[in-house]
């Protein structure tokens, strides 16, 4: 007779090994499922052909107009091919996920922060966290160069750069227990590189919040309808917060539906309120008043408890995001607007367009950041999402696939913006300094641009403004109003006719404002938290989150930072968006360069086997480094005043010294001198930080390549005890495995 304990142990472990089905699809099954069959080949040939036809229609066929449906086909077919082929190369050679390894969600499962989450749900979560107002703004501004440069960059950029960054950062963060990109930078790049990366992310946060707030201010200035409906989001969110806290905790979908209905009521009501005298008196606000309102709001919102305002508004914005995107995609396919904007305008070559200045290379690539390559995503991909991934192989679907979806949003924004008349587009997006602010002067300006197509008349501008319930649409810069007009233009053809234009316009404004206010509030909190952490190194008390004075001081500092830039932007005599937006793009791409540099160094440390595939990261890294550094150099050193901040600074300084008032009144000159100095200084800081990070990463990578494989900071592997399919569509082997797990009763699949 054997001893009970030994027998028990032996049977126990053997039983475990026998009872548990495999946690990963076997390699031969995977190969069997990915074998090329005739139907598969035919489908992919069809996708490739459709994509090729769509690209031909966009890039080579030069008719009077081009149908918007080709944008959709070109985008979707390219995404499918990029996802099916390129992301698989990244998976197989660069990342090499292993489903036998447990993810942080499985190892540290606590039911709250670490929860193995259904891949489709996590895809939605991740998408909601990465997609905001960014992809809706950049493409609209870039439309001044014609539709083709922006379209190519958004679609090709996402496949080769943006989605690669999101996917690899997500993967490596997951392999490190969900570490943030800042922590990974410190681990991999050491103290200098890590510190530079953290300072850069703090500054970037400030710039991004300021510019997004500027977009909202420009959309709401002198618009009682917009101010009323956006202001109503606050009581609606407070109501939702109280409802969830005290009435029905956890009924999030229910309260979001209620909030959505109230929101629609607020938009409809806004139209009525704007028509009354008291509505005009109360909600017709100057842009600087609105800017101060947002600053005060930002401070209060960032110190209020999360449950009261931030969380409910976040639910509302997630709800709206998914709804509006599905709606817009459906509408574009149904309406299929004809696009009259040319593939290239002259501004693509001269670089002297009124919306933003600077030549196509590099400024197109910093103007469109979100949608093609957004460094900010590195913060999300290395934050919440990696703690929720159920299986390693799912990171391709979530990280790469999620970014493809954001790119699609950017394409739809571009289509909406170019579906409106080009003359109206320039009247809306050129700064007031150029359009003069009245219909007559704006028309004179736009018709002097030498655009192709019929010339603009003052009547068109006033009637369009009236149709959307606005006083004026002239110099409504920032992208949001243009997108809103484009959306209204498309949507009113489906339901409601011109009578509904005003509703759809303000619906779009509201939905962008909702994203942006959430980003302002959440961004202030994150920035405050980072600042508390940094100050905490000297004054430990600041690290204590329950110490309110510390929270208030740090919040006030961060709000003062972005508020200052916001006020500069709002009062900028030269326009605001056109001068500040390049900083936003540069900041965002700089963060991308940092994230890619960190990934580059990590891959180099994985060993010789991986170094062969380093170009996958190297190509986007070099590209983004070149564009941010070149754009910064233009902004710092260009002798052309409309492009170089310091050149403009010198020009206005000279005017001030000479007492020349040809450029404007003395206070205007003073404002330009101050603004260009701030912008120029920020450009210098950004470019210095980028160069430091890239040099450090290069040094780390080169020495790692010399030494061969070494510890790259990954957590030790632990065996997984669960199974779930990797992508949206399950393969045969995955279905078989899922069935085995269901039989055991251990699988948590639905």
């Amino acid at each position, binding site marked *: 007779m054997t001893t009970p304990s030994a027998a028990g142990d032996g049977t126990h472990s053997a039983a475990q090994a026998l009872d548990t089905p495999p946690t990963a699809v076997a390699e031969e099954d995977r190969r069997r499922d990915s074998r090329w069959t005739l139907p598969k080949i035919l489908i992919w040939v069809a996708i490739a052909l459709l994509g090729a036809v769509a690209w031909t229609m966009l890039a080579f066929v030069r008719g009077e107009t081009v149908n918007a449906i080709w944008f959709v086909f070109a985008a979707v077919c390219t995404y499918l091919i990029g996802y099916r082929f390129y992301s698989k190369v990244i998976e197989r050679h660069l990342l090499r996920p292993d489903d036998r390894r447990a993810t942080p969600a499985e190892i540290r*499962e*606590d*039911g*709250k*922060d670490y*929860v193995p989450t*259904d891949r*489709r*749900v996590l895809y*939605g*979560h991740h998408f*909601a*966290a*990465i*997609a*905001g*107002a*960014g992809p809706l703004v950049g493409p609209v501004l870039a439309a001044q160069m014609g539709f083709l440069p922006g379209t190519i960059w958004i679609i090709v950029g996402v496949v080769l750069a943006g989605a690669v960054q999101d996917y690899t950062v997500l993967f490596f963060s997951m392999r490190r227990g969900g570490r943030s990109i800042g922590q990974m930078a410190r681990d991999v790049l050491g103290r200098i590189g890590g510190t530079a990366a953290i300072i850069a992310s703090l500054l970037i946060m400030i710039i*991004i919040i300021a510019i*997004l707030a500027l977009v909202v201010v420009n959309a709401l200035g002198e618009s009682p309808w917009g101010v009323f409906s956006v202001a109503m989001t606050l009581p609606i969110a407070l109501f939702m917060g109280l409802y*969830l*806290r005290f009435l029905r*905790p*956890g*009924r*999030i*979908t*229910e309260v*979001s539906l209620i909030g959505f209905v109230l929101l629609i009521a607020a938009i409809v009501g806004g139209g009525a309120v704007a028509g009354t005298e008291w509505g005009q008196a109360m909600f017709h606000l100057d842009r600087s008043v609105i800017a101060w309102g947002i600053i005060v709001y930002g401070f209060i919102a960032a110190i209020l*408890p*999360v*449950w009261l305002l*931030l*969380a409910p508004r*976040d*639910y509302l914005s*997630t*709800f709206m995001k998914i709804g509006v995107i599905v709606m817009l995609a459906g509408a574009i396919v149904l309406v299929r607007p004809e696009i009259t904007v040319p593939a290239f305008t002259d501004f693509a070559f001269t670089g002297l367009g009124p919306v933003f200045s600077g030549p196509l290379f590099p400024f197109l690539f910093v103007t469109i950041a*979100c949608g093609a390559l*957004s460094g*900010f*995503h590195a*913060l*999300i991909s290395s*934050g*919440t999402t990696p703690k929720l991934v159920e299986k390693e192989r799912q990171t391709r679907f979530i990280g790469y696939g999620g970014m493809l979806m954001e790119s699609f949003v950017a394409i739809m924004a571009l289509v909406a913006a170019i579906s409106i008349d080009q003359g109206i587009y320039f009247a809306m997006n050129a700064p007031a300094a150029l359009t003069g602010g009245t219909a007559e002067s704006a028309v004179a300006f736009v018709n002097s641009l030498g655009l192709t197509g019929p010339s603009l008349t003052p009547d068109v501008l006033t009637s369009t403004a009236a149709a959307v319930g606005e006083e004026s649409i002239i110099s409504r810069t920032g992208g949001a109003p243009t997108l809103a007009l484009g959306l209204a233009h498309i949507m009113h053809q489906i339901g409601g006719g011109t009578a509904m234009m005003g509703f759809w316009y303000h619906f779009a404004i509201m939905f962008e404002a909702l994203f942006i206010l*959430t*980003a302002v509030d*959440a*961004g202030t*909190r*994150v920035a*405050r*938290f980072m600042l508390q952490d940094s100050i905490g190194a000297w004054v430990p008390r600041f690290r204590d*989150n*329950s110490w309110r004075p510390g929270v208030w001081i740090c919040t006030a500092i961060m709000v003062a930072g972005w508020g200052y830039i916001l006020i500069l932007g709002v009062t900028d005599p030269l326009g605001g968006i056109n001068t500040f937006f390049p900083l936003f793009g540069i900041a*965002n791409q700089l963060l991308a360069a940092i994230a890619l540099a960190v990934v580059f160094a990590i891959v180099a440390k994985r060993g010789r086997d991986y170094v062969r595939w380093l170009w996958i990261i190297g190509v986007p890294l070099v590209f983004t480094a070149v564009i941010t550094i070149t754009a910064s150099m233009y902004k710092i050193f260009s002798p052309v005043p409309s492009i170089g901040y310091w050149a403009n600074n010198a020009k206005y300084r000279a005017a001030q010294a000479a007492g020349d008032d040809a450029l404007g009144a003395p206070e205007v000159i003073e404002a330009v001198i101050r603004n260009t100095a701030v912008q120029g200084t920020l450009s210098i800081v950004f470019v210095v930080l980028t160069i430091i990070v890239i040099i450090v990463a290069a040094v780390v990578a080169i020495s790692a390549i010399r030494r061969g494989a070494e510890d790259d900071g990954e957590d030790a592997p632990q065996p997984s005890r669960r199974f779930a399919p990797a992508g949206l569509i399950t393969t045969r082997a995955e279905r078989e495995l899922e069935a085995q797990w269901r039989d055991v009763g251990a699988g948590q699949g*639905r």
Partner: protein
Amino acid sequence: MAVSPLDAVPAPVAFWRRVRGWASSIRWYLTTLMGDRAYDVYVGHCRAQHPDAAIPTEREFWRDRMAAQDANPGARCC
């Protein structure tokens, strides 16, 4: 050949069942995405892993969760 329940009932009923199936899938997706099921997930986790520990009520759970978000803010993208 096995007869599936869908074959055994008249066509309109089968169709109605299928619609209900889709509706419940959409409902499952939406409520899971929005977070309605977070508490159930947590309770499931507690029951499985810490059967002896007291389980907070749904109200307490959400209070804790919001407090945690206050203490450790997460970013939203631009």
